[in-house]
């Protein structure tokens, strides 16, 4: 069924913490602890959470830059979880990534033209065809083809991010993972890149996994949103639904903590207490127990499932799910 570009089921990624002279495993960082979602063709799934929630690790596991410890990845109906490196090679064309840091993600010793052409070398194109595609890609992201021979340091952050997008597009992907692509940019440049991503999605039918901590950007771009906390999805809903009717205490806290450019809309809700915890050896039970204003004994004992609470709306909280 090609309506679903990517389906992720029960994904887990644990990192061992090794201590001592013999490097014995002293504990596990459960960076991704059972994630499931689906991205439809031409749609955007926003993956939102604070630092340490595991969202960037999810991106790397999907691309098989890290191997999953459990779970299933299905791309356009094909199970890709255990494909060999050789088998993955062809698929890598289809899944690309745009990184957060426009300064660190481009090779400073390659011209931007060379960076964009690099992915095209695997395809059977003549030199002229490659260069023609490169020029078209530059124009598509709003840069002049004449800049192809310049080096990254000659460009601003926003322009470098455009190069990152052009590079991702160069191999005709169906899915682009955007890992905080606008967080390092000024507000006025953010808008340019967001508009660009939207235009490209409309024109090319791209699917996006949009990873960000910025709820305003996620709310603007996404069709559906998954809220992550300590390696798990706490709430999963259509964007409208999540923003109008958040049900998980963490989603509610996150949404109310975001300052909006609305003077006078002072936060009436109390901000969440405590700090963002470390994913190292979390206690049994709900991941959110240490900060949840409604925590009870049951929350500390059993693992909590995702409960369906409406059309396409799931919440990881037994209090919400069982009421």
């Amino acid at each position, binding site marked *: 069924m090609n309506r679903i570009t990517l389906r992720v089921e029960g994904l887990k990624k644990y990192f061992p913490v090794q201590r001592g002279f013999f490097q014995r495993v002293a504990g596990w960082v459960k960076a991704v602890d059972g994630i499931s979602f689906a991205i439809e063709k031409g749609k955007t799934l926003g993956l939102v959470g*604070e630092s340490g929630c595991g969202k960037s690790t999810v991106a790397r596991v999907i691309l098989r830059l890290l191997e999953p410890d459990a779970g299933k990845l299905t791309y356009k109906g094909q199970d890709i979880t255990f494909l060999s490196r050789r088998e993955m090679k062809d698929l890598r064309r289809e899944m690309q990534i745009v990184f957060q840091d426009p300064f660190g993600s481009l090779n400073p010793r390659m011209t931007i033209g060379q960076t964009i052409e690099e992915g095209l070398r695997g395809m059977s194109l003549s030199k002229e065809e490659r260069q023609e595609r490169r020029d078209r890609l530059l124009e598509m992201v709003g840069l002049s083809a004449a800049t192809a021979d310049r080096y990254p340091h000659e460009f601003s952050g926003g322009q470098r991010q455009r190069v990152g997008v052009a590079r991702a597009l160069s191999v005709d992907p169906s899915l682009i993972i955007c890992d905080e692509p606008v967080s390092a940019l000024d507000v006025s440049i953010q*808008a340019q890149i967001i508009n660009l991503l939207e235009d490209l999605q409309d024109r090319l039918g791209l699917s996006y996994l949009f990873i960000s901590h910025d709820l305003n950007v996620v709310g603007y771009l996404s069709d559906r949103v998954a809220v992550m906390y300590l390696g798990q999805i706490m709430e999963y809903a259509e*964007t409208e639904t999540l923003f109008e009717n958040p049900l998980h205490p963490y989603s509610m806290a996150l949404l109310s903590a975001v300052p909006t450019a609305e003077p006078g*809309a002072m936060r009436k809700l109390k901000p969440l207490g405590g700090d963002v915890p470390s994913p190292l050896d979390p206690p049994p039970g709900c991941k959110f127990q240490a900060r949840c204003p409604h925590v009870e004994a049951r929350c500390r004992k059993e693992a909590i499932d995702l409960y369906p609470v409406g059309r396409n709306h799931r919440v990881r909280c037994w209090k919400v799910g069982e009421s």
Partner: protein
Amino acid sequence: MNDALLSVQDLRVYFRGRDTLARAVDGIRFDIRPGETVCLVGESGCGKTVSALTVLRLIPCPPGDIAGGKVIFKGINLLGLKETDMQKVRGNQIAMVFQEPLTSLNPVFTIGDQIGEAITVHEAVEPDVLRERCIQLLKDIGIPSPEHRLKDYPHQLSGGQRQRVMIAMALACNPDLIIADEPTTALDVTVQAQILNLMRFIQDGGAMSVLYITHDLGVVANIADRVYVMYAGIIVEQGDTPEVFHNPRHPYTQGLLASLPSRSRRGDRLHSIPGAVPNPAYKPSGCPFHPRCSLAVATCTTRFPEMVDHGRGHLSRCPVTRA
């Protein structure tokens, strides 16, 4: 403004390179009254941080050069003070909270030592009285078990807790003014909400003023009584926060507000200001915003614009602006 606690007048701060002159702050004036929270808002390179650091004379000169202007604090021009007299102002009457608490706190001294030092540098205090004051400060800023936290080192605290300690140090001598330079940029959004609440709380009912530097318009809307919008080293708009947000007059302010993504804007194309912020060493002639401005006319390229008064303290530096 006679009742101003701090009055910055025609401040110019330049940085001299071998062949270049970067005019980071190019003639700004702003006032802060007792008990107010004033925001300096702008994108990177607009000069807001340099302005704040200049108030406390923390800009190294050379390469910096305070090329003109006055910083009048309680009737005295700080720029004319001897360094030894300036040290009596810093931390005592004007305190500062920096962006990155991990690099601003000394890693080899305990929290108790550092907060204590903030006091003893200005006042002679008995050790047991000092300890009590430190504990009270930690309580005031919401750190649990303060007696035990005194012996902690910075690396043992979370980012949010470290920033609270920075605020405690700033409050230690009951300053008249706190300058906060992007204190929440490095923090997660739920922790940011706590810190913003804390800043509102410590000011409540008192005469302490806050100068808050940020690029985040949401934060400005949330905490500022009055706002100054900076661009390329000059102030382009100023006024009461609700007035500036609901009735922005300068094309840059209008552009910034219109380019903010939010869920409510979903489906509409974001306005984006074309181009990028100019290099402070190569500023355009006339109005520095004219290359990016859709309203620019011929005089904008040659004549530096004066402030236009819209009444009730709302000023904008654009003669062309549509009402």
